[in-house]
């Protein structure tokens, strides 16, 4: 996909992160383009999760967390947003392990809309159905909406968590190793969904499965020891990387 001429939705400028004395991200700068999948690849402890958590401001309460630099969402520095909850409504997150809330399948999807003030049940019904359909889960759960999600497979639970994240109508959706717990068939489902979601959302993906990043992303960034070694069009990263460390990583000789 062409990356030029697509507007940026998120700009990261000189971002550095410390946990206590330990620096985990080093002077990262990049742009996330609207409607694209941007994947961050790198070995364990390269800083991928820390980075995507920062974009969701999930590190706000981490002890000894310190940062310099800026993350701008639609041109506004996120650090200055007083209301992290409002921000998270625009930037949703899906984690490695699906964690359905207590309550029914229906309530899981309706939850975000409810706390945003949507109450009329007919409207909620629409929201629940629409978002379960978007994830392809609707036909599998339409007759068991009132039941708890425990009976669903892990893959279905992950799709439910994605539907829940979509129900608050975010602009950006962050996936932190979303297929870490899934089998290959479920992984294909999630990857196909990710590509479909780009019609309406901007997606940011952290994964240590380099092949997954190759399959799903438009733009890829290689993180190594907290440094963004290379960032650019995925086809370029995987066919002709410019840095020797990226070459070593994508060919499986590093990390």
């Amino acid at each position, binding site marked *: 996909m062409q990356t030029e001429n697509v507007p940026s939705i998120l700009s990261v400028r000189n971002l550095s992160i410390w946990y206590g004395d330990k620096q985990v991200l080093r002077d990262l700068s990049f742009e996330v383009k609207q409607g694209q999948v941007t994947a961050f690849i790198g070995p364990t402890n390269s800083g991928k999760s820390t980075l995507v958590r920062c974009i969701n401001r999930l590190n706000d309460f981490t002890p000894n967390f310190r940062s310099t630099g800026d993350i701008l969402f639609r041109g506004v520095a996120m650090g200055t947003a007083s209301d992290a909850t409002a921000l998270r409504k625009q930037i949703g997150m899906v984690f490695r392990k699906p964690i359905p809330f207590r309550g029914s399948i229906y309530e899981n999807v309706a939850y975000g809309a409810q706390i945003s003030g949507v109450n009329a049940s007919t409207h909620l019904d629409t929201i629940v159905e629409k978002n379960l359909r978007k994830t392809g889960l609707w036909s599998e759960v339409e007759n068991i909406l009132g039941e708890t999600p425990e009976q669903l497979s892990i893959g279905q639970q992950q799709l439910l968590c994605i539907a829940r994240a979509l129900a608050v109508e975010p602009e950006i959706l962050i996936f932190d190793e979303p297929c870490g717990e899934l089998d290959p068939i479920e992984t294909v489902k999630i990857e196909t969904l990710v590509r479909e979601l780009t019609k309406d959302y901007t997606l940011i993906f952290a994964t240590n499965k380099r092949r997954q990043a*190759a399959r*799903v992303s438009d733009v890829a960034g290689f993180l190594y020891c907290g440094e963004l070694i290379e960032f650019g069009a995925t*086809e370029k990263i995987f066919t002709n990387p410019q840095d020797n460390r990226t070459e070593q990583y994508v060919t499986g000789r590093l990390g």
Partner: protein
Amino acid sequence: MLHAEIKTLQHKLLEMGGLAEQMLRQAVESVLTRDETLARIVIDTDDTIDEFENEIETLCIQLIALHQPVAFELRFLMMALKISRNIERLADKSVAIAKRSLELLQYPPLKPFVDLPHAAQVIQTMVKDVLDAFVNRNAELALEIRERDDEIDKIYERMHEELLTILGEHPQLIQPGISLLLLFRHFERVGDLAANISEEVYYLVKGDIIRHSDAH
């Protein structure tokens, strides 16, 4: 996801193949009707074919790198690379035919073309059919096309001998004679290239390499 990309790639290959088929038709027409304009159109179209080849090669490399395909998808991408290369060579032959056609225009007609229209017909049908076999994944058609190359070879030998006889009797015709000889040779090569593509289509569908096996 790869499935959709493969469809795009197939579409591009067909566009390229269709263009090469058109070039061949125009090149042959330019020889038979002594039409200079057509010959120049063929020569000018070659750049577009080269662009197609580059685009298809880049796409194949990217898809292999990004998706690590296996089974049919792997065969498809590997054969797409080879087929596009052979289509490009085929288009080069049409350009060569068009250039010989321009050379022949400088001389009066050497002899009435008897075998040439027939050879042209066989070759054009071969190219058209091999693209159909590719689209329809038709291995039987691919095998049958490959055998038609023998007919081209026989016509080529016949035209070659006939021309040598004429030149023996009329040595002053040596220059147009050489142009015509080269032209026959290009026809024969187009048949070989179409046969190559048919072998690639066969491999794509069946997974068996028949390149070095007997055509009979």
